[in-house]
């Protein structure tokens, strides 16, 4: 149990850091990605979806998008909204109006200056929260500039409510605005079973393992889910800028590609019939023509034959081209 708890904590820390470390990891992998193999399951999912929007490595970046007017920084209200990101993490964003801050400053006088802006996170699972009956709470010091925060709750399957407030030097907490209540999902199967639809634990574990694609050995269920998450981490993928195809190209390192093409062009009477290597070609209205061929190594014999409209005259010219690559 102790070990699982540790692993879980580790996983959770990783999850939380949206972070540079994960970004970098996925960058490293781009070379492998470019070669069209080596991506893991979840990666593939992201890539397939991303490929819908893939027009080429440069296009999206190079293209200029004139930006419309900027969005308002705020909407002139005091508000804090909380959303569940996953079983462990919440995201809160808020807005405080200058007048609210002025009012508080006026009311609290000197205490306002030393007060710390704080998020107080209440565990309000299975209760109707009245401000005092939370199971527990914890505080986060958010500084004066932040307007949103990712909160690590450390406990899946619970309900949360967050107060945006001020913590005074003497320890008092003043709520400025209270958020909505959110419930995070469980990070494993429910402990609740219903009598009518009972299932033995070992069979459920087996079904569970099969369903999430980590095999069907009847080991602990929690372990299986963690196994699945670990695999995702191991793949080092984040739906991140690390996927940018531009970087993929850069990651190739130094390189050189040389191809050769041959242009055959000429002119005759506009109404003549012309064949090149025995195949008829279409002349432009002025009687000129241009053909372009990829030129492989070896010798190409290219007979060009023109026959006048009345079929009485014929001219042939046969360029011979030899290409060799060293």
């Amino acid at each position: 149990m102790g070990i699982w708890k540790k692993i879980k904590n580790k996983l959770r820390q990783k999850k939380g850091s949206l972070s540079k470390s994960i970004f970098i990891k996925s960058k490293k992998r781009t070379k492998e990605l470019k070669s069209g193999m080596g991506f893991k399951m979840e990666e593939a999912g992201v890539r397939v979806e991303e490929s819908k929007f893939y027009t080429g490595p440069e296009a999206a970046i190079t293209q200029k998008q004139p930006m419309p007017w900027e969005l308002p920084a705020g909407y002139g209200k005091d508000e804090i909204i909380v959303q569940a990101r996953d079983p462990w993490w919440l995201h809160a964003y808020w807005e405080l109006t200058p007048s609210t801050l002025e009012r508080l400053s006026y009311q609290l006088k000197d205490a306002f200056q030393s007060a710390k802006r704080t998020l107080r996170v209440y565990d309000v699972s299975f209760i109707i929260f009245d401000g005092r009956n939370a199971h527990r709470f914890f505080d986060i010091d958010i500084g004066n500039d932040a307007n949103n925060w990712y909160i690590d709750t450390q406990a899946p399957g619970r309900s949360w409510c967050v107060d945006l407030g001020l913590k005074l030097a003497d320890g008092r907490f003043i709520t400025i605005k209270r958020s909505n209540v959110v419930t995070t999902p469980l990070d494993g199967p429910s402990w609740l079973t219903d009598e009518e639809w009972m299932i033995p634990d070992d069979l459920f574990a087996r079904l569970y393992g099969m369903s999430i694609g980590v095999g069907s050995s009847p080991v602990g269920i929690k372990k299986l889910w963690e196994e699945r998450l670990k695999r995702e981490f191991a793949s080092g993928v984040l739906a991140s800028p690390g996927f940018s195809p531009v970087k993929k190209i850069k990651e190739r390192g130094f390189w050189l590609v040389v191809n050769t093409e041959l242009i055959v062009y000429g002119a005759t009477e506009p109404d003549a019939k012309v064949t090149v290597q025995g195949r008829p070609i279409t002349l432009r209205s002025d009687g000129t023509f241009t053909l372009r061929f990829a030129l492989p190594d070896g010798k190409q014999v290219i007979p060009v034959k023109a026959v006048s409209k009345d079929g009485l005259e014929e001219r042939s010219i046969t360029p011979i081209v030899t290409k060799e690559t060293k």
Partner: protein
Amino acid sequence: MEKGYLCIVLHSHLPFVRHPEHEDFLEEDWLYEGITETYIPLIRMIERLYADNVNFRLTMSLTPTLISMLKDTLLQERYNKHINKLIELAHKEVERTRWQPEFNHLAHMYLNNFYEARNTFERYNRDLVNAFKNFQDQGKIEIITCGATHGYFPLMDVVKPSVRAQVKTAVSHYEKVFGRRPKGIWLPECGYNPGDDEILKEAGLRYFFTDAHGVLHGSPRPKYGVFAPVYCKSGVACFGRDLESSKQVWSSIEGYPGDYYYREFYRDIGFDLDYDYIKPYIHPDGIRINTGIKYYRVTGPTNDKQPYNPELARQKAAEHAGNFMFNRHRQIEFLYDALGKKPIITAPYDAELFGHWWYEGVMWLDFLIRKLAFNQDMIRMITPSEYLLENPRNQVITPSLSSWGWKGYSEVWLQGSNDWIYRHLHQASSQMTELVRLFPNVEDGLLKRALNQALRELLLAQSSDWAFIMATGTHVNYAIKRTKEHILRFQRLYQEIKSNSLDKDWLADIEYKDNIFPDIDYRVHQ
């Protein structure tokens, strides 16, 4: 002996990208590529299955945004231009590769593909939705709906009226297009938030899907895992995705698309060929883009790619279809004995996986469907609504919050690169609800048009694609621009409506630009 069911679901979606104000618009290519490489090949496959009288079932979601684009005459005209350009390029390629037999037959293959695309497009009078409608009317395909603009529901928890507007707008749009009510819905990004099923029920929808853990982590414990659907308390059924079968198709380690004989997606002549030669077929600004003509196979972990060989790839696709069926047999045999009833394997995929990303994917699906129909009798393909008719008694649980995005929850759409959008989206949603309360019954006139347009702008801003693109890093500026543009248009409409100062010309202009859902009713946002 029949021991189980297979329910394949293809989710087809593209965000609404249509810019009549520009002659040529890069992001519209998403649609054109989808048409040529996925939608038309799928249509051709289904036509052949019907023609050969193969017994099969497929469930497909076509999102309202995709349907709207496929039915839009401007985009149809532009696709026509696009495919004609491709045909012209393919002709040149046939000529250019004359001395390279290893590429020349591929140039011919693409030329044929493009001709077939154009013929199919013309056969349905340029309206490919009609193809799918016909297929559904013939009974073997079930088409389901999706959120109106593919908004991600779990991040609309604080603005439920927006979930309702997404669902109801989608359902009425579906009814108008297909002449019947949809039976099921593909929740955008498979994102389920407990309680949203109540809104599905209001809209007359009978089932939806979640990722595996949506059902597995539901409460109480699901007796059959994901191998039978469950009912939510609302009575709406929920089918859980089987990751085992998904993995075989998505993953290149255990899965198929990364096979060395399959075509390489990232080597395109738009990048490989001489600039002057390819210039008329790339972006008018001179930016190289994909053309869809790709001559190489995956080859291996190397940049030294080998030419593609369609015949070998075809054999691989057949082999992989056989392997997929074999694995489902093993899975179903075990489950049938363990559960004491016939399991259902729900296998949903992004439709664009097939053909576009995995070139041989459509072929693989074709092989699989035929093998299932003719070479075995243990598995029967089924649609969710048929399953529920045959198996009406199912356990009631509350599925868990979940999505099929990376890590299974909301992180793709809620992270450093895109979390800033929610304060604006939620604000606009609240304002929209306020407008509906202020004007509960506007029957016609300018005000009604403005209210309807406000809802259009809000819905367009909500597309999960913008957040997704911001997170993945391609076309980021476009995604940011779209988000801002729709929110700003909404804000201006809101102000003008409330101050009774509507700018008629400007309204007409944005109606012309954002012309999705002509029959929208703003009152669904409550």
